[in-house]
C-alpha cells in the first residue's frame, strides 16, 4: 500500500515533463494562444512517445501501462497547458485507427441530456441547454458524439457505480461522425487555447459499440488529472512570483497574507492529488466523481489565488495565469456537473457503500 508513484512512474512523469518542456515550451504556448490550431507535428510526436498508446497492450504496439500512469502523464499535460482533444486521443487510441500514433485527431462531444426519448434514426437536435460543446472543431478528423448517461441521471447506477447494474445501451450511446456532418454554431471560446463550437444537430446513425459508462468515467478522471496538473502549476507560479517580487522593501512572499494564500493552494493540490491518484487505482465511479469535484475546485480556486498573488501583473494577457483559470473553467463543465456529482456522493452515504 503506497499512494506515491513508483520510481518507474516518476521517471515516466519526468520524461513527459521534459518532452513537453522541449516541444511545448513557453514560446510555443504563447504562439498557440494567438493561433490555437493544433500543431499536428507535435501531435504525431506525442503519438510516437506513446502518449496516446500508453494503455494499449504492447502486442498492439502500445506501452502496456494502466490508468495510474495515464493520470500521471495527464497531470503533466495539465501543468504545461497542452491544448487539444487529449482525453479523446487517450480513450480512443486502439478504437479509431491512427489515433494511437497521433496521425488522426478525434474529438469527443457530449450532446446528451438524460430524459431523451427512445433511440431513433435520423437527425437529432441538441437543445439550447447543456452539452454540445466541441473542442477544436476545426482540427478533428472525426467526431464521436456521446448521448445520455450523465452522473445522477438514468443510468447513474452504472455510471455512478453505486449499485452494480450492468452497463448497457440505456447508459449512453456513441455515434461516429466525420467532422463535416454535425451542424455547429461558433462559440467565442473563453479559453484562447481551446477553440469551441456548439453542436446543434447531428445525424443519428446506428450507435457504435463503445463502453460509454467506462468512457465517461475515464474521461472524467483524466480531466481531473489535467485539473490537478494545472492546480499544481499555479502554486509553483504563485510561489515563484512571491519569492521574487518586491514591494514595501521586501519580497511579498514574506507577508503572511501571501504566504497563507500559497499554503491553502498547496493544500488543495494535495487533497485533489490524493483523490485523483486513489481513483486511478480503484477504478470505481464514486471515487472518480469525488476526485473530479475536488480537482475542479483546486484548479479554479488556485488559478484565482495565483492571480491575486500576481496582482496587476497577473491581470495582463501576457501572464499565463489567466490561461490556467480559463482552461480550468472549461474543464469544470466537462464530463460531470457539480450538482449531479454532489447528489451522487450524497446518495452513496445512504447506501453505506463508502469503503475504506
Amino acid at each position, binding site marked *: 500500500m503506497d499512494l506515491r508513484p513508483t520510481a518507474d512512474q516518476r521517471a515516466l512523469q519526468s520524461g513527459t515533463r521534459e518532452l513537453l518542456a522541449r516541444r511545448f515550451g513557453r514560446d510555443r504556448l504563447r504562439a498557440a494562444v494567438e493561433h490555437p490550431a493544433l500543431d499536428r507535428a507535435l501531435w504525431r510526436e506525442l503519438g510516437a512517445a506513446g502518449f496516446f498508446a500508453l494503455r494499449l497492450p504492447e502486442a498492439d504496439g502500445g506501452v502496456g501501462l494502466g490508468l495510474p500512469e495515464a493520470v500521471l502523464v495527464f497531470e503533466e499535460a495539465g501543468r504545461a497547458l497542452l491544448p487539444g482533444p487529449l482525453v479523446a486521443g487517450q480513450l480512443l487510441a486502439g478504437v479509431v485507427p491512427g489515433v494511437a500514433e497521433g496521425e488522426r485527431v478525434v474529438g469527443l462531444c457530449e450532446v446528451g441530456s438524460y430524459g431523451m426519448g427512445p433511440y431513433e434514426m435520423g437527425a437529432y437536435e441538441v437543445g*439550447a441547454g*447543456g452539452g454540445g460543446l466541441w473542442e477544436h472543431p476545426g482540427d478533428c478528423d472525426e467526431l464521436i458524439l456521446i448521448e445520455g448517461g450523465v452522473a445522477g441521471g438514468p443510468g447513474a447506477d452504472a455510471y455512478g457505480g453505486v449499485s452494480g447494474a450492468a452497463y448497457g445501451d440505456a447508459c449512453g450511446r456513441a455515434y461516429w461522425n466525420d467532422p463535416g456532418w454535425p451542424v455547429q454554431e461558433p462559440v467565442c471560446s*473563453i479559453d484562447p487555447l481551446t477553440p469551441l463550437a456548439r453542436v446543434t444537430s447531428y445525424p443519428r446513425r446506428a450507435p457504435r459499440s463503445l463502453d460509454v459508462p467506462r468512457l465517461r468515467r475515464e474521461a472524467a478522471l483524466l480531466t481531473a488529472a489535467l485539473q490537478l496538473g494545472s492546480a499544481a502549476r499555479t502554486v509553483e507560479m504563485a510561489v515563484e512570483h512571491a519569492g521574487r517580487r518586491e514591494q514595501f522593501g521586501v519580497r511579498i512572499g514574506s507577508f503572511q497574507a501571501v504566504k497563507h494564500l500559497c499554503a491553502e493552494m498547496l493544500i488543495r493540490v494535495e487533497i485533489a492529488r490524493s483523490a485523483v491518484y486513489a481513483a486511478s487505482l480503484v477504478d470505481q465511479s464514486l471515487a472518480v466523481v469525488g476526485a473530479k469535484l475536488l480537482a475542479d475546485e483546486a484548479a479554479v480556486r488556485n488559478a484565482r489565488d495565483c492571480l*491575486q498573488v500576481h*496582482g496587476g501583473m497577473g491581470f*495582463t494577457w*501576457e501572464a499565463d495565469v489567466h490561461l490556467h483559470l480559463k482552461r480550468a473553467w472549461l474543464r469544470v463543465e466537462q464530463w460531470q456537473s457539480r450538482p449531479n456529482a454532489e447528489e451522487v456522493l450524497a446518495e452513496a452515504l445512504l447506501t453505506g457503500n463508502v469503503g475504506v
Partner: protein
Amino acid sequence: MDLTYSPAEEEFRARLREWLAKTLPDLPARPDPLDWPGRRAYDLGWQRRLYDAGYGALHWDASPTQRLIFLEETERAGAPYVGANFVGLLHAGPTIAAEGTDGQRARWLPPIVRGDEVWCQGFSEPEAGSDLAALRTRAVRDGDDYVITGQKIWTSHAEIADWCELLVRTDPEAPRHRGISWLAMPMDAPGITVRPLRTLAGPAEFAEVFLDAVRVPVANRVGAEHDGWRVTMVTLSFERGTAFVGEVVACRRTLGALARTARANGRWDDPVLRRRLGRLNAEFTALWRLIQRNVGAAREAGGVPGAGGSVFKLRYSQARQELYDAAAEVLGAAGALDADQEWTADRLSSLAYTIAAGTSQIQRDIIAERILGLPKGR
C-alpha cells in the same frame, strides 16, 4: 437615522429623471469598443449634454447626497457610463478642485466638466503596484520645467487623453513618501510613448506609458513640491468613496436579470443556485445601504470620504465576483464559456476588483491599522 430626502433633493431627483427620459432616446449609437476616437467623441458628447443641463461638475461641486442621487438615477435610466471622463471627473478633477490654485482650477476644471478634455492617470509603475510609494519615475527640475523619465502602467484611456495626472519622484533622497510630486502632464508633450496593454479580459482601455525626458512646466504641479503623496491620498479616497454607487445599482439590476434568465432557462429549479441569488440580494441591498451610511460620514468630513470606503471596497469587490460566478451558473456551460456573452465578459473584468486600486490584502491592512488601531506590521 433617516432614509427620506429633503424636498430640494426630491426635486433634484425628479428633474434629473425627467431630463434623462427626454435626453437618452436622442443619444447617438454606442461606438464599437475598439473605436477609440469614436469612444472619445461619444463619452465627451455625453458629458457635454450633462454640462449643458447643469450636471457637469456634480462630482465635486455638489453634496454627497446629490451625487448619490445623480449616480443612482443615471444608472437606473441606463445612461452612458462616465467612460473616458472617468479620471477627469472622479480623480484628477476632485484633486484639482481640492488642492489646486485658482488659476489651476480655472485652466483645468472647465474643460473637464464641459467635456472638452480627457484625463488619464499615471500612478502605478511595474515595480510600484500595491506599494505605490515605491514609484521611480524621476522629475528633475530644469529652469521652469521638470524633465521626466520613467514608465507608468495601467493608464486608462491614455491613447485619447489630453492630460495625465502624473506622480513623479522629485526628491530621491527623501523618505519614500516625502519626495513625490503631483503634476498635470499634457499628453502631446514630446518624449511620451503610449503602448496599449492587453488584459485577460481582452483589449481594454489600459496602456503602458513610457516617458523619455518629457518636459512639464513647474506651474503644472498641484500642491507643494514633494507633497504629492498627501495630494494623492485625497484622490484615492475619492476612488474608494461614492465612485462605485452606479456599479452597485447596476449589480442589483443584473441580479434581477439573472433571476429572470434562470427562471426562463430552467436553472431556477436548482434551489442551491436560487438561494445563492437570494443571498446576493441581501448582500447588494446591504452594500447599497453601506454607501448611504458612508455618504453621511463623508458629508460630515467635508466631502472627503474616509476609511469607510475600504470597508465598502473590500466587500463589494468580493460580492461582485460572486455575482458573476452565479451568472456563469445561470448561463450554463455554453454561455459561461462564451466570451461574447456580456455576463461572461463582465466575469473576467470582475477579477480585477480585488486587485485594482489597492488589493484586498492592502485594504485589510488599512482597516486593521487605521480603523481598528491594531499595531502596524511591516
